């Protein structure tokens, strides 16, 4: 990790994200990048009022949050909003817009704010959102793997008990059946567990 930059106390950043874990990851990243004032807001309860009270320079929002349309209203000068905002769009860099949308994040900035000051913040949001998706993907994969291992263990146990064979032999039998039927090992195991529980009179 880089050494934290001296805190930039002049920028206030609001994060609108109902996923508190992801919001915390981004908040930490922004602190690391030297942004001192970061607030996490919820899109559900009167976001506009919270934003008007906070008066942030930059708003980072999850694209899955319907409240994105609330921010759109702030484009227009009105009595409700003191300082109009703009979507952070670097027209010279289409790839960046796509990267943001792909990552599932969008950014709004107060009109007149220099884009150079905001770009690192948006880059940070994109990379942290992506990191979060990767983490979630890995977690999902781990969960699936654990669940599959459990089913295979149960199937092995059923075979060992019913056929009086050892663990290795039970595993080999499952694998052979899967190969013969061109099915996944876990599918064969699942069928066996289901069938066994039906025969036992229990819920599959």
């Amino acid at each position: 990790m880089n050494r934290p930059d001296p805190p930039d106390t002049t920028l206030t950043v609001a994060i609108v994200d109902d996923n508190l874990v992801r919001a915390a990851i981004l908040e930490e990243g922004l602190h690391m990048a030297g942004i001192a004032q970061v607030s996490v807001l919820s899109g559900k309860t009167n976001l506009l009022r919270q934003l008007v009270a906070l008066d942030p320079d930059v708003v980072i929002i999850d694209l899955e949050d319907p409240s994105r349309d609330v921010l759109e209203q702030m484009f227009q000068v009105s009595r409700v909003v003191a300082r109009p905002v703009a979507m952070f769009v670097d027209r010279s860099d289409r790839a960046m817009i796509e990267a943001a949308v792909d990552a599932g994040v969008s950014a709004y900035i107060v009109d007149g704010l220099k884009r150079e000051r905001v770009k690192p913040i948006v880059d940070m949001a994109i990379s942290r959102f992506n990191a979060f998706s990767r983490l979630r993907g890995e977690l999902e994969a781990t969960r699936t793997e654990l669940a599959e291992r459990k089913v295979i263990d149960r199937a092995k146990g059923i075979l060992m008990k019913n056929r009086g064979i050892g663990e290795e032999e039970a595993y080999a039998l499952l694998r052979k059946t899967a190969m013969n039927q061109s099915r996944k090992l876990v599918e064969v195991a699942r069928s066996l567990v289901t069938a066994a529980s039906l025969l036992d009179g229990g819920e599959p």
Partner: protein
Amino acid sequence: MSEIVRAGFIPLLDAAPLIVAARLGFAEAEGLTLDLARETSWANIRDRVAIGHFDVAHMLAPIPVAAALGLLPLAAPMIAPFSFGLGGNAVTLSRPLWQALAAAGAGTGGAPAAVGAALAQVIAARLAAGQPQLTLAVVFPFSAHNYELRYWLAACGIEPDRDVRIVVVPPPFVVDALREGVVDGVCVGEPWNSLAVEAGVGVIAVTGAAIWRSGPEKVLGMRTDWAESHAETLAALLRALYHASLWCGAPQNRAELARLLAGPDLLDKPAPILEAALDGRQVIADVAAGEPHGPLLTFGGPAATFPWASHALWFYSQMVRWGHAGYRPDAVLAARRAYRPDLYRAALKPWDVDLPSANAKVEGALTAPTAVASTRGRLVLGPDGFFDGRIFDPDRIEEYLAGFADGPRGDS
């Protein structure tokens, strides 16, 4: 081989023709696979069309006009060659506000003038009593909701930017916002009005279709360059949507349509509520057996799906009226060209559909269903126009704007 068209939509009743085209074989019959993607905000719809994640989308009718005028963050010209239907939104007020209006003589018919007069009276009384301003919500700045609500308020003597506070509340939060008193009213598309009534937190006071009869609400929007480079695909898509829209409009299909739309990957709301909304059986003005109201949402046929240039121009006139756009002759032209009746005509040519002869009409000229000049001479349109009787002639926008007390305010 079937061509894939990626289409974004917001889970609302008026996305029905797109959903039906994708799920009930209408797209397939035209050699297309419609790949639907449910979205959570109009800003996402706009951006994903602009950067090419979606080829086409279910879009608020003024968005392609705003894109043509360069009012959107990403510079991507868009067009609308098809309208999903007429009407579809309504103004739902919180129970406490409705009770105040009822006491002030809002009546039971949901008549815009009577309800508006009662609202003006309530607002004046609140001002005199030093009570806070009423907050009314729409779903997006460039929406039929915003412009119809403003039109109605102003015609009833309520200055939208002075006498009330207009904010944006996304539809999924509407019921909670009404319940918690965060807003006093919303102008939102179905089924959200029906859901607010069902939850006991709101009363449908006026329908969009009563404010602007035969007004459009959502259109099929796309990038201009996509339409140009996919002319055949677009024509096939328009034919599929046309036929899907006829299917949606047939009363005998409503139960099946409601069941389809209720699916967890689509609107994910109870089918009976959706069916009642499709039937036009919403409870209006808190009277279960009140006077029958016209359909809140109309699908099907050239009358409901033709992309009238006059619709685009009316939205432009309102953008100028409320300071969202400047008035310039070249902007008038750009707004007019955002709607593409020529593409609609070209696509439907092989089907011998009875199409209007004109591309624009004077909104408010038809006070009753009227046979109009058309390719086969059997097309009936109307009634159309605005509840206050004011006529919009798309060739005389400046004159039209000068007729409002609030006048044009664009930075021309």
